């Protein structure tokens, strides 16, 4: 293929992969955290959208991308609190809560966006500019792809090992893993199941929200209604494809973004093949990968269940 040959084209290609993957990686890490604690976070879609809306509002009202980031995180955290309160606190079915929150967030963000951003909705919002890391960014191919990025992409680089470290190298991570598998055992040694779950859910939503912040503050600098466009569902799929392990989930997201970028490329080189067939590529590729490589994967055993002490 012609484009494979020259470096600048490759740089563009992998930059596309990185950009497409970043929001999904954030959300999927959030998914890992929540599901590891036994909560199925279907509202990631809403969290991305909420984070995007918060980011746009903050950036618009305060005039700085940092303000946007703060608002985005706060808005996503608020969604997380609602989910935690309903699904963990009251023990309402996690799926329904998640779906209902998605609907609510879709309506509410659009409603508020019209109210707050109103006529200025078309104008470009302040966002983060790429920051080149000295030395590293001058490595050929890798440098411009990885080390000439905006701050949130760097944050994403950090978030992956950080989540891994958290889950596998800290006592809190141990608590989370135990709660996701056998909450009674964690409860009997004094770990507060609802407490840990609530924290995980809220953090999970904030991570999803960061994905939304990235969309607005680093990628398109504008808020549009329903701009999450299904990314939350893809993140959920990536969580399972990556077997609830942050490192593998990261690989799954990259794999997904790679096939998405590839299909965009292939589309241009093959204008005669119907584009819908290309749009299917990332999903088909994930499907094939799953069937080919993922044997029996055991999800955290307590996922989706409400924990009641003494409930035998």
């Amino acid at each position, binding site marked *: 293929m012609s484009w494979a040959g020259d470096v600048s084209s490759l740089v563009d290609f992998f930059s596309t992969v990185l950009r497409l993957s970043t929001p999904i990686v954030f959300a999927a890490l959030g998914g890992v955290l929540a599901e590891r604690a036994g909560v199925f976070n279907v509202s990631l879609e809403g969290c991305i959208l909420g984070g995007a809306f918060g980011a746009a509002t903050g950036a618009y009202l305060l005039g700085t991308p940092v303000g946007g980031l703060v608002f985005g995180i706060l808005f996503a955290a608020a969604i997380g609190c609602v989910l935690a309160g309903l699904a963990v606190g009251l023990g309402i079915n996690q799926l329904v809560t998640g779906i209902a929150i998605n609907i609510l967030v879709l309506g509410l963000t659009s409603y508020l966006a019209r109210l707050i951003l109103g006529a200025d909705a078309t104008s470009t919002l302040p966002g983060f500019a790429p920051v080149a890391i000295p030395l590293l960014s001058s490595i050929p191919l890798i440098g411009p792809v990885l080390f000439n990025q905006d701050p949130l992409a760097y944050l994403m680089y950090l978030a992956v090992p950080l989540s891994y470290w958290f889950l596998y190298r800290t006592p809190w991570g141990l608590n989370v*893993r135990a709660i996701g598998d056998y909450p009674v055992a964690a409860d009997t040694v004094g770990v507060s199941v609802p407490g840990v779950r609530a924290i995980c859910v809220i953090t999970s939503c904030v991570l999803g929200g960061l994905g939304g912040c990235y969309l607005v503050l680093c990628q398109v600098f504008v808020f549009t209604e329903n701009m999450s466009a299904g990314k939350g569902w893809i993140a959920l799929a990536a969580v399972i494809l990556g077997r609830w392990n942050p490192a593998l989930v990261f690989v799954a997201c990259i794999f997904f973004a790679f096939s998405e970028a590839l299909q965009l490329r292939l589309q241009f080189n093959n204008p005669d093949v119907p584009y819908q067939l290309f749009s299917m590529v990332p999903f088909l590729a994930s499907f094939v990968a799953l069937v080919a490589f993922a044997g029996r994967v055991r999800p955290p055993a307590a996922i989706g269940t409400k924990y009641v002490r003494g409930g035998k």
Partner: protein
Amino acid sequence: MTAQGLRLEKISKTFGDFKALDGVDMTVPRGTVHAILGENGAGKTTLMNILYGLYQPDGGRILIDGAPQRITSPRRAMELGIGMIHQHLMLVETLTVVENVVLGLPGQGMRLSLAEHARKLEALAKSFGFDIDPHQEVWKLPMGMRQRVEILKVLYRDANLIILDEPTSVLAPSEVEGFLEGLRRLRAAGKTIIFISHKLDEVAAVADRVTVLRRGTVSADLAVAGTPPSEMARMMVGRDVVLTTLEKTSPTSDEVLVRIRDLKARDNRGNQALKGVSFDIRAGEILGVAGVDGNGQAELAEALTGLRQAEGGTVELSGEDVSAAGVYERRHRLGISFVPEDRHGTGLVLDLPVYQNAMIRDFRESPFSSGPMLRAASARKVAEDWVKRYDVRLQSVDQAIRFLSGGNQQKLIFAREVECRPRLLVIMQPCKGLDVGAIEAVHRTVLAERERGTAILYISTELEHILSVCDRVAVMCAGRITGIIAPEEATPERIGALIGGLEEEKVA
């Protein structure tokens, strides 16, 4: 009074409409081993869960060293130096031993220093004579080993008051003595121990005092020294219990009903768990299978009942090779019944009412159904009949079976597996966690089945039970039968050698 130790006053607890505990008083002086006895469902576990902060009592109070304490959570209990080993294992199976031990351990800071904890844990284990690999994942460990992990978990937290809820129920007889020795050592170290068990000899061997619970109230509180076990049993159940051998006749027939040859199977992890097992069972004979848990007994039972695909060998029933039959065929056409080891996980559907659990085996057949239609009314009638005849104590057959005590659940399973008139009855660990009264009932049922001419395979780690009911005893070790002997020949030395895999005898 300025008692050093624990005092419970007028503790009561209600679940829904059911009074599980009604004004329980108990005093446990520091540095003693205090046993709690009681029938299944008497409220022992509930009382301990209250002490450990898992449940809040509806009334009454808890005093520790004279000071009243509100124990709102397990964390609070641990702060007060209380540790508990639960009746059902509280281990996260996907985590390693050391991870399970440090789970929830306070004061760990930000780093999970597993290596360091593993070292300390190993040292602690050694001092109690346990040999354990701290980095092994729990699901890979046999039950006895898991029980030790539970004990280590409590010891590692340096608890002063240790609650043990039926800790010996999953240990092999050979392990029990070491375990009791460990308890004595803990008492010597000044720890206070509350010990729940259905095994009166264990209580007699180790406890200082005993509290007997009956239906949520204290029926006796006495010193162990000088109280004969039969007296304890009487106070538990409220009547006399036959404790030792039940009367039995010689086998009713010489017909070999079941012929197993060179049976091989793998366990869930893919290891060769059955390495070629051969034996016969005659009609009206009880063949016991003894051995330490995890030596292939579970795989044997599952391979016989079709739940596990055998890898080699044959199973013959009345001369017919049935090795290829599936579960349904074996259970229905061939008449194989199975009382599984795991009552809750395999034998019952806890959320279903009692009468539906009664029809789990034969719901496709009369009288539970006709054609494709269920017959709920007639199923209820059958269940009520069984409940009466097998003395299952419950409020109604429409009650979820989850709320029956273990002994009563087991009686129902026996009724179901026996009332269909099976040719081969496979029983695995039927008395685990049952009180003496229930054990007696189970053994009566087994012997009645024997009289009827059923071939019975009785798998248990409780040697005493096996010796008292079986016609012959096969001993399993590491996936093989190391010997088949008559109960009369079974001296402790001989059995011990067979269990250890030392002696190799040919199939009788």
